[in-house]
């Protein structure tokens, strides 16, 4: 698997560290909504197909990326800096 890091270029899987589902909505830090916290921490949609996920280029620029990848074929569809990507955790 090759991931096209927007900063470093196309690099091998071995350089990246997987950081999981990028669609989870993290409650505001001050939130006391336990249900929302539980959902954020424990639950995943875990789709068979298109999956939006975080990878850190740990062996490169160390930026976090949002990658869209097909979990059935491992095909990588899009890559962007997590900081620039709308939605997801940062929202």
């Amino acid at each position, binding site marked *: *698997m090759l991931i096209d890091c927007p900063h470093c270029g196309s690099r*091998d899987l071995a350089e990246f560290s997987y950081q999981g589902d990028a669609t989870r909505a993290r409650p505001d830090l001050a939130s006391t909504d336990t249900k929302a916290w539980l959902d954020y921490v424990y639950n995943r949609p*875990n789709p068979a197909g298109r999956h939006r996920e975080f990878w850190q280029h740990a062996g490169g620029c160390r930026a976090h990326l949002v990658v869209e990848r097909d979990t059935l*074929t*491992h095909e990588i569809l899009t890559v962007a800096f997590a900081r620039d990507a709308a939605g997801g955790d940062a929202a």
Partner: protein
Amino acid sequence: MAEYSALSLFKNAFSGNRDWKPAWRKPDPKPSYDVIIIGGGGHGLATAYYLAAEHGITNVAVLEKGWLGSGNIGRNTTIVRSNYLLPESVRFYEFSMKLWENLSHELNYNVMFSQRGVLNLAHSPGQADAFIRRGNAMRHGGVDAEWLTPQQIARKVPGLDTSKSARFPVVGGLLQPRAGTARHDAVAWGYARAADRRGVDLIENCEVTGFLREGDQITGVSTARGDIRAKKVALAVAGSTSHVLQRAGIERLPIESHVLQAFVSEAIKPFVDCVVTFGAGHLYMSQSDKGGLVFGGSLDFYNSYAQRGNLPTVEDVMSEICAMFPSVARLRLLRSWGGVMDMSMDGSPIITKGPLPGLYLNCGWCYGGFKATPASGYSFAWTIARDEPHAINAPFTLSRFERGAVIDETGHGPTPKLH
């Protein structure tokens, strides 16, 4: 259907092996059942068997998308052990171990459970303490465990690098003598045959495409072979859990599906007797009866339903096996394959009623489903039959996350890839 025995083998050999009957029937699905089990893997088949054998519930169908045993039951590294740390796990897996010890007789099928021992190597004083803690937890839970010195290990496992100059020298090892390996496919086939003999319908090539419901209540399933009604629908589909439950409207679960690769070398004459695990990485190895070295390592570390892994993990695993057994470098890797693991958020399984009325859930086996097969089937059947958990699966609920009563053997927390 005839019992299997040495005698039946002789009799059939004389008649040219022409009189053997199918190991199980290939029935068409009936319109309705008392219980439908989705998933004809080890756990689903074991559940069907125990429903019939322990609870007299025989109007049962097992629906399998492909061929029986096509999931992780036929893709694992065949290790059976109950060397756990936490009391909930010790109880559950030791219950399983006791079932294993009599399984070939119970099923009238040789599952080749061989109690060759599982040895966990420790490579630092801190790791030794952690393993001793675990071994002592086992002993307090009535499970066999021994601590071996490097000298004892060197005698037991020739070929293992126990030298002081090793990159991660062996400082000791936790041995569970009663642990070992079994023939994975035989477990599926043995349960299948035994369930079939008690009247369970095993239906292959029958993918569940949806759920029938009245309100919230699940009342059956839609399949490639038509709608089938049932009073109770039980799910045992491992890595496909999220995918299948989405069809029942359950969008989110404490599960991620990850790919785990396994490997076998070419067959060689007896090389290593017990199962050995490497403590300075993640590697477990044993030798099959055919002679191949069977081994595996970590997940590939990304969500996947592909039953196919990638090269970096292959290289990591090979590096670790060479560090343990430097002579293995000269042997050749014959085959690799991948399985889809249902990684739960604390590394422990979920065997429970719910999450919808009429539905029963069995998932979250992470790396460890094979050894659990008997106890998983036993306690899941109990839960389905009685609508309450057996004592051994009572802690393994879906609600434990809400309460904070997680069962986290490794202490890695809610990062499923690390369990």
